[in-house]
Structure formats: structure tokens, C-alpha cells
């Protein structure tokens, strides 16, 4: 079995005229589902294109399963299923033609699984691609990626064109794929609900920089929003790791990114309520904090 990580970025830089992805270091380990979250234009697709060898880094190194990219992309891509919302199949060909075409390329093609997915996604082999809705086309693309049983699935905003029901179906399939613990997924999205549902590791990216990357549970445990009531004239003790502070008269809300029991002990009786934060709230607070830090 390969000892290489499915994805390794080391100090990667890629500059465009109006955007630079800078000093990106990232690891996706075997069996891991990494949610790659960032606002529009943050650099998610650029990162994925670098990973797949479609772009060449200006500096640093990108490796997939130990293969240096983009030089070894043809070899590396044998083990990868890549799905992007900016991807379409041959419009005049049928779904069945695509199934036969991909099956003839990949020795690991799982015909039974392909049939199951066809049924589950309500697709028919005789349908031409141009007759499918955009959501159905994306399902067909996903089917073609999933049924080849790749070691690594790279998904770039795969649920962007889906209605809520389709999104539920598709996310369920990703979870099924990950029952095989040797498979990995890099899942890029700005929809934190989808990411929170399937990922076990999260990386936040904003304006071309990786701002945080850790286990999902770690994020959810470390971040808290604390409501306080501070009597007039009283001052709050110095609290470390406060990334956001809102005040309204004697009421205040602190956002903390390294919450511990010690935090509550320091605040004492001023604490009225402690909120766990959703991934979306953590993401927004994280991004805003980093933007403020960088601009100052």
C-alpha cells in the first residue's frame, strides 16, 4: 500500500494578474475527508487545478500520491476522480456512451455500482447529455467519477447546481464512498452545511491564503460565542484569543477561538450564556478576523 499522502502542497505560490495564491502548505491524508472552504474568489479552484496539474505553480511543490505535479499528472490521475461544477460531458453523446468510454479506460470500473448509481440518480443510459438538466449532468459526471472507485475524489463545488433533495442524495453517496477507509476526498465548497456534514478535517482559505486547517471537531470545540453582562463601571479581565467583540450597553458578546474552562473562570459571574458555534459562524469569524489582522 502506498505510504504517500494523496495530496501534499509545500509552500505553493501561484500568481495571476489580480490574484495570488501564496505560501500554501496542505496535506490530505489517506482516508481523510477534507472540506476546503472559502468565499468566492478565495483560491479554492486554483488550488484544485494546481493539485490536478492543470496549473503549474510559480514556486513550491505539489504532489499527488508522491507524484510531482504537473509533470506526472497522467499517472497520478489514474487514481483520482475529479468533479467540478465547471465540467460538462460530451453534449451529443448518451449517458451510456460515457459509461462505456470510462469503463474501457479504468480497470477498476465497478459496473454494478454504476448501475446502482444510475438508478439512484434516476438517469437512463439512452439519454443524450444535452437532454439532461444541469443537475442531472452533474450527477452523471459524479457517477462516472464514483464508479471508477478512485483512491482520491476531488470535488470542486460539486453540489452548486443541485436542489436540496439532489444534494442530500449526492452527499449520501460521498459518505458511502468513505466507508472504504483508504479513500480520501477533497471537497471544496462555500456551503459550510455540506462541508460540516461529511468532512472530518476543514481547511479555510481566504484571499489566496490558507488561514486555518484542523480537525472539524477541533474547530467546533475551540470556538465559542460568550454573552456577558458587565455592570456599569466594571471592566472585563484580559481574555486571550478573543477574535470578535460586540458591545451593547452593559451587554457584550465575545467570540473566542481557543475556548477552555479557564476562559469561563476568568470571566466569572459576567457570563450569561455560552454558545457553540456552527461551522459557518466559525468560518465567517475566522475570515473576518484574518482580514482585520492582515489589514492592520
Amino acid at each position: 500500500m502506498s505510504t504517500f499522502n494523496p495530496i501534499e502542497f509545500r509552500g505553493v505560490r501561484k500568481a495571476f494578474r489580480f490574484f495570488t495564491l501564496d505560501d500554501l502548505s496542505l496535506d490530505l491524508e489517506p482516508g481523510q475527508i477534507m472540506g476546503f472552504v472559502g468565499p468566492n474568489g478565495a483560491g479554492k479552484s486554483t488550488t484544485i487545478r494546481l493539485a490536478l496539474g492543470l496549473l503549474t505553480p510559480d514556486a513550491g511543490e505539489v504532489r499527488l500520491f508522491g507524484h510531482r505535479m504537473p509533470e506526472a499528472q497522467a499517472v497520478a490521475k489514474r487514481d483520482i476522480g475529479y468533479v467540478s461544477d465547471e465540467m460538462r460531458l460530451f453534449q451529443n453523446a448518451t449517458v451510456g456512451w460515457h459509461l462505456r468510454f470510462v469503463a474501457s479506460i479504468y480497470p477498476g470500473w465497478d459496473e454494478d455500482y454504476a448501475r446502482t448509481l444510475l438508478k439512484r440518480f434516476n438517469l437512463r443510459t439512452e439519454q443524450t447529455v444535452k437532454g439532461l438538466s444541469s443537475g442531472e449532468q452533474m450527477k452523471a459526471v459524479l457517477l462516472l467519477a464514483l464508479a471508477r472507485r478512485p483512491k482520491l475524489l476531488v470535488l470542486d463545488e460539486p453540489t452548486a447546481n443541485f436542489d436540496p433533495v439532489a444534494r442530500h442524495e449526492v452527499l449520501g453517496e460521498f459518505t458511502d464512498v468513505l466507508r472504504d477507509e483508504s479513500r480520501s476526498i477533497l471537497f471544496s465548497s462555500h456551503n459550510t452545511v455540506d462541508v460540516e456534514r461529511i468532512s472530518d478535517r476543514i481547511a479555510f482559505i481566504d484571499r489566496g491564503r490558507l488561514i486555518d486547517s484542523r480537525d472539524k471537531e477541533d474547530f467546533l470545540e475551540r470556538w465559542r460565542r460568550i454573552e456577558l453582562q458587565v455592570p456599569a463601571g466594571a471592566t472585563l479581565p484580559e481574555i486571550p484569543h478573543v477574535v470578535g467583540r460586540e458591545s451593547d450597553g452593559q451587554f457584550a458578546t465575545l467570540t473566542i477561538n481557543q475556548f477552555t474552562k479557564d476562559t469561563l473562570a476568568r470571566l466569572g459571574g459576567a457570563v450569561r450564556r455560552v454558545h457553540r458555534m456552527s461551522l459557518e459562524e466559525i468560518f465567517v469569524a475566522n475570515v473576518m478576523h484574518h482580514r482585520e489582522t492582515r489589514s492592520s
Partner: protein
Amino acid sequence: MNPLTRKLIERELHMHRWMIGASILAGLAGLAFVARGGSINFNVGFLIWLTTIVAFGVVVAMFGIASERKERVMNWVLSLPVAHGDYVRIKVVALLLCFCVVWITLSAAAIGLILAQPGLPDGLLPFAVLLCVFMLGNYSFVVCSALHVHSEGPMTIVIVVHNIAITLFMFAVAAIGDISSHMQGPVAVWNPAFWTVLVVELAVFLLLFTLPFFVAARRRDFI
């Protein structure tokens, strides 16, 4: 050639099979007009034959490269185990094969017609050969441009230049006395003027055919 390369080339031929068939039929229909004799039939038939080859070249190049990129099908193809350099090479070879099926058939039919038809002077043969080879080079120009140009505006200019080039070529060759003076003659004259133009045409074709291998295939960023 690895199996995936072969399959992608076969796919290109498969995708364009109806257009290839229709173009051959249209070109042959044009030559059938020519075979009926008379200057009107000659002009109409020649125009149909010429337009068929020229239009087929543009349509195949646009469908095979520009539309594939615009409709984002290329993104899916590049998700397969193929490097972008291979993608460029596959496109050049596959689209040349598609064109050659039509081009060889219709060029051979035209030359055969000149040889077989008593009403058509054999002196036309050098001009016909030069015109056919020019169309091959002109097609390579469109394919080469489509692989290097990514926006619609410049590509439109490429198509206009491609279409005008045929007319300019015919005017230019007609202006070469050593070629035009023998066109109505009973025998084909393969003189140095003919060979010079042919060598230039082949050199241009080779340059345009191989340029994508050295430029587009080596591009650092493909999408």
C-alpha cells in the same frame, strides 16, 4: 500510442462521423455538377466542392477545440488520466484525421475527374494539386489557432482570414504566369514554379501542424 490516446482519437472520429459523411456527399455532389459539363455547372460545382472542404475544416476545428473548451467539456476530458500536452497532441492528430478523410476523398475525386473528364483540361492538375494542399495548410492554420487562441474575438478573425485566404491564394497562383499559362493546356506541366509553390505550402503546413506540439502542449497553465 497508449489505449486512452487511441480511444480519444477514435472518439473524435466517432463524434464527427455524420459531418464527415455529409461533407463527402456534398463535395461529391459538387463534382457531379462539374462532370455535367458547361461553365455554369463547372462554377457551381467547383464552388460547392471548395466551400464544402473549407466549411468542414472550420466546423470540425470549432466543434473539436473551441466549443469543447467553451462548453467546459475539456475540463472533463482533462479529469481523465491524460496530460494537457497529450490532450493537445490528441486534438491535432484526431482532427487532422477527421479532415483528411474528407480532404483525401474529395481531392482524389477532383483530380480523378480532371483526368477522366474530356471537357476538363489536364493542365488544371497542377493548380488543383496546389489548391488541395493549400486547403490542408489552411485547415492546419485554423486548428493551430484554435489551440492557441482562447477568446471568441480573435477566433472570429482567424475564421475570416481562413476563408479569405482561399480566394487570395487563387488570385496569387493565377498571377504566377508559369502556372496560369498552362492551366487551359491539354497536358499537366509540373514546372519549377509549381514545385516551389508546393514546397512552400508543405513547409507552412508542417510548421502549423507541429507548432501546437511546441507551444500549446508546453503551456504551463492549461485552464
